[in-house]
């Protein structure tokens, strides 16, 4: 079963401090939505407001078409997986899974059937009689997820579910959560500060900054057509390169020492000589070759060999730093000068207000 969520001009204030500033958001039924943003952007607060753990200062929250502002957390049809897992330390795994059902007054046989079914799905059956402290991080995470599944909620919320796991386990659990979503088909919201997690898991990403929504879209939409400089810099790894530039013609900009032809719809919106920011992703810069247009020459500062790709950190003649991510293994050395080329189709430009100059 899947349920839609709508937020209308939702505001959260802690006394004088406004942490969520009028958020409007439509979360479609059955979608995996990820709230992403830097620390303190309000993503966890927003999630907790949906959960019912924080009151909504202003605005409306609708779940499945019903206004839920004043409905208790337990009656919203939501289950939540906490960052610290929040497993009850004095109860066995079995009791942890059964607790919500016991509270709801479900019959003992039914509880037992559901707990065992979920335990089998999550491969935790052999740990049912253990206490949480006798489990590894990944096992605890699975119990926490199990505790949310067993109640058969309409909506799942995950608050930074992978942040306490090591790198390997994180990738594994990321895949498991995505599979779980595919299998259950419920509406899910996940909060993370890690854009890689957001890109890999989400149907829809909501980028937040300072309590405001910066952009909502699919991972590739955000990657290909970021609405502003913040989103452009936040989505993608390594981060997008930004160079100070100025508009010289309706379809041309100039980064220091290098004129570039760009066909950006809204470049003409800026008056001539307006300072703009030119953006290009590290993986879209080509080292040498004939394709596209030249970005001038750079001096190589550092080369990182990752096996499948090579990261090059370089400095332009103007002093600006650039990161380049080239596929394969390159034999470039520190101190060398290399010519760079770019494809205009992969370029971005941002106006003085940091909004993207493209529709």
């Amino acid at each position, binding site marked *: 079963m899947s349920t839609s969520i709508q937020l209308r001009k939702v505001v959260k204030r802690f006394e004088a401090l406004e942490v969520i500033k009028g958020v409007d958001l439509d979360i479609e039924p059955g979608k995996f939505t990820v709230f992403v943003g830097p620390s303190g952007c309000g993503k966890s607060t927003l999630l907790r407001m949906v959960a019912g753990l924080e009151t909504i200062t202003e605005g409306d929250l609708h779940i499945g078409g019903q206004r839920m502002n004043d409905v208790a957390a337990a009656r919203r049809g939501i289950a939540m997986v906490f960052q610290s897992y929040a497993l*009850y330390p004095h109860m066995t795994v079995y009791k942890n899974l059964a607790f919500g059902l016991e*509270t709801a007054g479900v019959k003992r046989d039914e509880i037992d059937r559901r707990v065992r079914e979920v335990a089998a799905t999550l491969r935790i059956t052999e740990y049912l009689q253990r206490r949480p402290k006798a489990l590894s991080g990944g096992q605890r995470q699975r119990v926490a997820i199990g*505790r949310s599944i067993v109640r058969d909620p309409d909506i799942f919320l995950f608050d930074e579910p992978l942040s306490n796991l090591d790198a390997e386990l994180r990738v594994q659990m990321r895949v498991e959560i995505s599979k779980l979503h595919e299998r259950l088909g419920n509406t899910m919201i996940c909060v993370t500060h890690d854009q890689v997690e957001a890109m890999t898991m989400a149907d829809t990403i909501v980028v937040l900054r300072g309590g405001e929504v910066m952009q909502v879209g699919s991972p590739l939409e955000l990657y290909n057509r970021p609405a502003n400089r913040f989103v452009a810099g936040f989505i993608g790894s390594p981060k997008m390169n930004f160079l100070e530039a100025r508009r010289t013609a309706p379809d041309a900009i100039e980064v220091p020492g290098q004129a570039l032809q760009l066909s950006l719809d809204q470049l003409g919106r800026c008056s001539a000589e307006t300072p703009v920011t030119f953006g290009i992703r590290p993986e879209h810069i080509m080292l040498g070759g004939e394709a596209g247009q030249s970005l001038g020459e750079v001096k190589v500062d550092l080369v990182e060999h990752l096996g499948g790709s090579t990261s090059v950190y370089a400095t332009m003649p103007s002093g600006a730093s650039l990161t380049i991510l080239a596929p394969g293994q390159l034999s470039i050395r520190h101190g060398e000068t290399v010519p760079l080329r770019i494809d205009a189709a992969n370029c971005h430009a941002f106006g003085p207000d940091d909004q993207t100059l493209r529709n």
Partner: protein
Amino acid sequence: MSNEARALPGQGSNHPYLRSGLLHCLLIAASFVMLYPILWMLAGSLRPAEDLFGGGASLVPSQVTIKAYSQGWFGMQVSFGHFFLNSLLIATLATLGNVLAASLAAYAFARLNFFGRKLWFALMLGTLMLPYHVTLIPQYVLFLKLGWINTWLPLVVPKYFAVDAFFIFLMVQFFRGIPRQLDEAAQMDGCSPWRIYYKIMLPLSLPVLATAGIFSFIWTWEDFFGPLIYVSDMSLYTVQLGLRSFIDSSGTSSWNELFAMSILSLIPIFLIFLFFQRLLIEGIATTGMKR
């Protein structure tokens, strides 16, 4: 500085047994000084009455007799066993009340939002500074008007209204250390604040509940003043009041019976310390509190 620091362990390692032996002698001597009054009392309880003040400071009785125990136990119109039972009942009821009420009050202060919470908390802490004797007379008048004088009610009932700020504070500190996400998880699981209290908070607070329980039991057991003020009927006497009955203002005091019963009255406290010492220390250590 660093040379001195290095020299110290070196000195110790030259004569490890001498050093440890000296230290132990010193500690044993200090313990003996502390225990001497109790040992003397024990010796006194086993001496014949006429020998009691003749032997000076000696701990070894010239003749051992347990007559004082049987006379002390059965010598009064009410048996001393009755006083033990009274004390046990009062201490158990008071402990139960203290733990229940203080944990509920502490849960409210630590976790619930209500009007004037900070003010009430400050007022509650303020009562820590009020000596018992300041409220004694108003309390006495209140209990007199309620018709509770010469009953156990004044000794037990107030404990069910969270009157001991020390226990509340101890528990608030402990509850604050329990991650709030557990409450929130329970809230998502459909728990009311009441269910969170007894299903999550109480089971996780066993060390502090035990500490409060043990202190409460010991203090109630040892309380002399409260029963003295409120209880006058001998059948309602506690152990502490029973002990006082051995000392007669007219001069015919039964000292060795007093000593014998005093030794017996220490046994419950001693046993509690023996069995719950670890819980007591854990409860105090985990709240970072000392009294």
